[in-house]
């Protein structure tokens, strides 16, 4: 019984909103650019992709509290418009890259906005030296963790997820090579993707296994990059979407689930499970689909083990079988010659593309469903994003119109 969390009750927004423009900022290591500048570049490119002018935008979504973002003030200043904008802080990346379309659908239904842009950007590679434990700084500020976890060296995130990986290995027989298969698939995708930070760095499974441990049982290759970068996507109603430059991608389902222990991973009863077990079924139900209908998957992959757990928790295989499922080339964009592969993070993911916290995952799915991806999955019709923060997970079901 899964009684350690729950799905968030959501209204049915299936078919109520479409993704019509996507844009990525330049992804890189430390670049000296600010997150706001990076966000501006992403929004410019997303609007150009949609064939829309900045003054046609009447809504903006981003996440507050995660550092400066390209917000409504930056939008007006950058594009020289005084237009009033519908504003939601429930946008951005991580889980919100999946729930932003839900917010947009509700805003469109309520007559509050008609064309909305969701944006997220980071300059953490440039600011790394100011952040204790890198992105771990957000956890170090939590007083219970600062008191009970940091003093014992259980910090930052690679330590949390190495501990989860070891327990998963114990419970289910998951191996290092199986984690490595995920790292290798993502790297191969990055090698074929023009915007990936690691596009020029190949990785074989033997090469992975030969690498030293960072936080045993995880290697550097099991951990995400730290990047400067960002992305944006534009959303509108299906009728307007049909008249725009690119084929629209429809939102068929949205789900969100949460763990009752929040980001206190140490105390989560289902230690080797993610809140996708609550989120994914809700999103599939809204979409009228199952995991078997999914052609291409993009999951939040801060660590290989998180992608592996989501394969299980989103119903692509039974709990505990994620390791065996990931072996070989099943997760590669060309399915490794399997008749029924499950291409995963075909842009390279957080592991090998850029650590922009999932918003580039959604951009990649839109390109896949339009048929314009760098590592195109043949005949992709349905794409799913799995977002994750630890405390929460989210699921976005997208389909070619």
């Amino acid at each position, binding site marked *: 019984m899964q009684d350690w969390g729950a799905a968030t009750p959501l209204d049915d927004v299936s078919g109520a909103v479409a993704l019509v423009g996507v844009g990525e900022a330049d992804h890189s290591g430390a670049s000296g650019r600010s997150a706001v500048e990076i966000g501006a570049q992403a929004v410019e490119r997303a609007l150009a992709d949609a064939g829309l002018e900045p003054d046609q935008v009447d809504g903006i979504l981003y996440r507050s509290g995660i550092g400066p973002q390209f917000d409504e003030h930056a939008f007006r200043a950058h594009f020289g418009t005084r237009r009033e904008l519908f504003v939601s802080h429930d946008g951005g990346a991580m889980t919100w890259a999946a729930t932003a379309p839900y917010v947009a659908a509700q805003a469109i239904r309520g007559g509050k906005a008609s064309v909305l842009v969701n944006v997220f950007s980071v300059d953490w590679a440039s600011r790394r030296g100011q952040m204790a434990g890198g992105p771990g700084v957000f956890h170090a500020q939590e007083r219970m963790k600062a008191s009970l976890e940091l003093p014992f*060296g*259980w*910090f930052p995130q690679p330590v949390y997820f190495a501990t989860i990986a070891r327990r998963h290995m114990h419970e289910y027989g998951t191996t290092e090579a199986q984690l490595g298969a995920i790292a290798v698939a993502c790297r191969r995708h990055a090698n074929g993707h023009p915007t990936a930070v690691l596009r020029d760095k190949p990785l074989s499974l033997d090469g992975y296994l030969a690498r030293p441990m960072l936080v045993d049982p995880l290697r550097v290759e099991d951990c995400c990059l730290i990047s400067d970068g960002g992305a944006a996507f534009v959303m509108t109603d299906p009728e307007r979407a049909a008249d725009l430059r690119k084929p629209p991608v429809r939102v068929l389902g949205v789900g969100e689930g949460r763990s009752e222990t929040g980001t206190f991973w140490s105390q989560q009863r289902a230690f080797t499970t993610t809140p996708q077990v609550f989120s994914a079924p809700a999103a599939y139900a809204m979409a009228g689909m199952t995991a078997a209908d999914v052609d291409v998957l993009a999951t939040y992959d801060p660590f290989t083990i998180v992608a592996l757990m989501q394969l299980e928790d989103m119903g692509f295989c039974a709990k505990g079988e994620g390791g065996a499922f990931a072996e070989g080339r099943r997760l590669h964009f060309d399915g490794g010659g399997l008749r029924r592969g499950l291409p995963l993070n075909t842009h390279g993911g957080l592991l090998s593309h850029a650590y922009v916290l999932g918003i580039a995952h959604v951009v990649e799915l839109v390109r896949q469903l339009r048929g314009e991806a760098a590592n195109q999955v043949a005949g992709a019709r349905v794409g799913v994003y799995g977002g994750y923060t630890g405390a929460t997970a989210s699921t976005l079901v997208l389909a070619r119109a």
Partner: protein
Amino acid sequence: MTAKPPLPDADWEPLRGFWAGAAAGELRIPRCTACGVFCWYPRERCPHCAATAFAWTPTSARGTLFSWAVVRRALYEPFAPLVPYATGLVALAEDPAVRIVTRLVDCEPSELRVDMPVHAVFRPLAFPGGAAPVPAPFFTPTR
């Protein structure tokens, strides 16, 4: 940025009983006075019966090693002198749902096994350049 040594504030009210216990050589965990369930981490309401009164209760300070990680390269400056070190979670004997975050001491990482019996040893927690050491529960394999 030079990270501040991560010493706990032993006077912070929600965890005062924990650190007072450690100073007395005991592993104390809050227990709901209404239903008797151990509640960890401390919270305002008992998740089992919703009561709001807890008593810091001494435990056996024994348990099993739920899982752990071996930090081979320091990701956080204050721990650089300790690398490599093993840190992880101990499931408390009285109630395995209570997991204590700890550092494993007096053992080699290669000796560790999931679910092996472990017990607490109380040592001063200190960092170079830090404030006065705080007595804290570390764990070691029970041989």
